[in-house]
Each structure stands twice: as C-alpha cells, then as structure tokens.
C-alpha cells in the first residue's frame, strides 16, 4: 500500500515536472522563434539618439548578400574580443519581412550572438537617406554611432582588422 502510494506520488510529481518543463520549453521556443522587427525610428532611439559613452556598431546585412555573410563572423568575434569595452553591435537584417523564417534559420545555423533585428521600413528611398545621404543602398554597410552622433559610415566589406581598429579607436 505504502509502495503504491509512493509510486502514485512519484508519478504525480513527475507529471508536475513535465508540465513545468513543457511550459518552460514553450516559453523558450516562443522567444527564439522570431526575429525582432525594428523601424528606423526605433533603431535611432537605440543608437543615434543615445547620448551615452557606448559605441554602437550597426551592420546592415541580408542572407542573400555574400560579402555580408562573409563578414558576420568578424562582428561575432569583435563582440568577444572587446567584451570588456562599452560597445553594442546591432545586426540589421534587410531580407524581406515575409522571409522571417529564412532569417531565423540562418541566425540559428550560424549561432549569431549579437542582437539581430529585421528592418521594418517600407520606402527605401526615404530610410536609406535617414542612415546616410551618401549611401545609395548597396550592402554591406556598417555605421558607428557614439554619444548621439554618427561617427563613421563604412560602405562595403569590412575586415576583422578594420573593425577591431575602429572599435579600439572609438570605444572605452
């Protein structure tokens, strides 16, 4: 009798645990099954307009852009190398909003640790100028912001060395 009771208790506890596990798992997957969307205004609020001493590094990329994919590991490495510095890297994805699943799969496959956002901006003729008047829309592009100002606009590929040097020069 005791045994049976004990067994029943075990089964009950196990079920409780499973429910907890399932719940926590579903929360976990819910938070990683989407790519956060960002507008230019929100991006600016997260970078350009922040008058603090953090160096914000904003990289515009897409899964279809070969040179962009090639340089993504440099940003991942930079985040590790300069972990003790006040920097924040934002990887702004320009794939179509409808192709979120593709971006998500890519981010998981490459195990990207930097913050990834999908840009939610309708009219490129408007928003490209909001980033830089000289930029005509070819990617990759990397922009550096600090203390509420754009300090560097880097058009085209960036090397690990270039990235590291710029971070060393502009971050504390």
């Amino acid at each position, binding site marked *: 009798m005791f045994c049976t009771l004990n067994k029943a208790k075990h089964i009950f506890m196990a079920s409780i645990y499973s429910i907890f596990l399932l719940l926590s798992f579903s929360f976990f997957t819910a938070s990683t099954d989407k790519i956060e969307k960002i507008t230019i205004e929100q991006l600016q609020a997260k970078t350009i307009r922040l008058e603090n001493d953090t160096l914000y590094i904003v990289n515009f990329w897409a899964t279809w852009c070969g040179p962009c994919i090639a340089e993504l590991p440099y940003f991942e490495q930079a985040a590790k190398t300069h972990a003790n510095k006040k920097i924040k890297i934002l990887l702004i994805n320009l794939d179509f909003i409808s192709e979120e699943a593709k971006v998500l799969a890519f981010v998981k496959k490459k195990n990207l640790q930097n913050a990834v956002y999908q840009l939610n901006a309708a009219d490129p*003729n408007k928003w490209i100028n909001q980033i830089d008047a000289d930029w005509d829309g070819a990617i990759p592009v990397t922009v550096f912001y600090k203390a509420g100002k754009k300090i560097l606009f880097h058009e085209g590929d960036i090397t690990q060395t270039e990235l590291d040097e710029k971070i060393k020069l502009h971050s504390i």
Partner: protein
Amino acid sequence: MKKLIVFLAAAVIFMTSFTKEGGYQVGDKAVDFKLKNIDDKIFSLADQKDAKGFIVVFTCNHCPYAVKYEDRIVALNAKYAKLGYPVVAINPNDAVAYPDDNFANMKKRAKSKSFTFPYLVDDTQNIAKTYGATKTPHVFVLKKEGSDLVVKYIGAIDDNTEDASAAKEKYVEQAVDALLAGKTVATTSTKAIGCGIKWKQ
C-alpha cells in the same frame, strides 16, 4: 620631402574623392557602348535608330532583388519599347565570383523568363563604372537629344521591391511618361537596396 608628402596626400585625397563622385549625375551625357548580347552579337545604342531614349538596367541573375524585379523589367519593355524607350539590360558582375551570372547562365535566364530585350555582358565592367552603377538592379533612363544621350533619371524601378502590387511610386514609369509627354522628370533620382556589384579584383 615634406612638401612631397603633402602633395601625395592631397593627390590621394583628390583621387579618392574622384572615385566616390564617379559616375553620372542627372543631366550628364552618357556614353554609348558596344557590348555582347545573349544572341552573341554586339549591341550598341547608336544602332537603335528608332529609339527616343533607353531604359538602361544594370541587373544580373543571382541577386534576389534583381530577380524580384525581372517581371517588372519585362513589363517595362513591353510597355515602352513601342513608345520609343526600350529596355537595355546589362550584367556587370564578375562571373568568376558569381558563376550564376556567367554568359551561359544569362542566356538560360533570358530564355526562361522570355526576355524581349537585349541582355548584355559588361565584361570589363567599364560601362558600369562609367555610368556609376553600384548595385543591381540600378536604372539609368537616357533620352536622345540630337546626337547626345542625356541621363534623365537614376535609381530604382519603384518603391517596393518585395511586392510589385504594393508599389506606390513607379519611378521609372513616371520618368519615361514625363519624357514622352515632353515634360520635366519630377523625381530624377531615388535610392533602393540592391546587391552591390561584384567588382573584379
């Protein structure tokens, strides 16, 4: 020695800024070209005696943005070739870096998408550089004025790459419509995301 260094530095800065400013602005006279078409013949704008102008599109096979616009480029030619503004497509990409963009694949793509316009290969990339194309797709609308070809519009086809039916501004159509009506083009240059042209090393 110091003077020399200053001079060299100035020269470098000058040359760098020159490269940055390279390419056409609206109002510039564009050069003609002799480029190989997918029918293996050499194509030049001067041979198109009946044209009033051209919709020159730098495009390619591999770029998803260029692919998204293929049907719209075909539609532009269907609408405007008979009105005197045919489409001339030019692929400027380094085919070594992107084998999808090689000449054989250009022929295949033109056939499968039923291109009704020339699809030329800019092997030396000189035309893309001279025009100032930086990405695909990148459009230059040219108008014949006497013996000159004058750049009237530079930029995107419309304002919505992802969804043609959601495009609010059809920039190239607006530009060509204005030229056909003898009016000034209202929006002469626009920006868009595209695949950067892969330059040869």
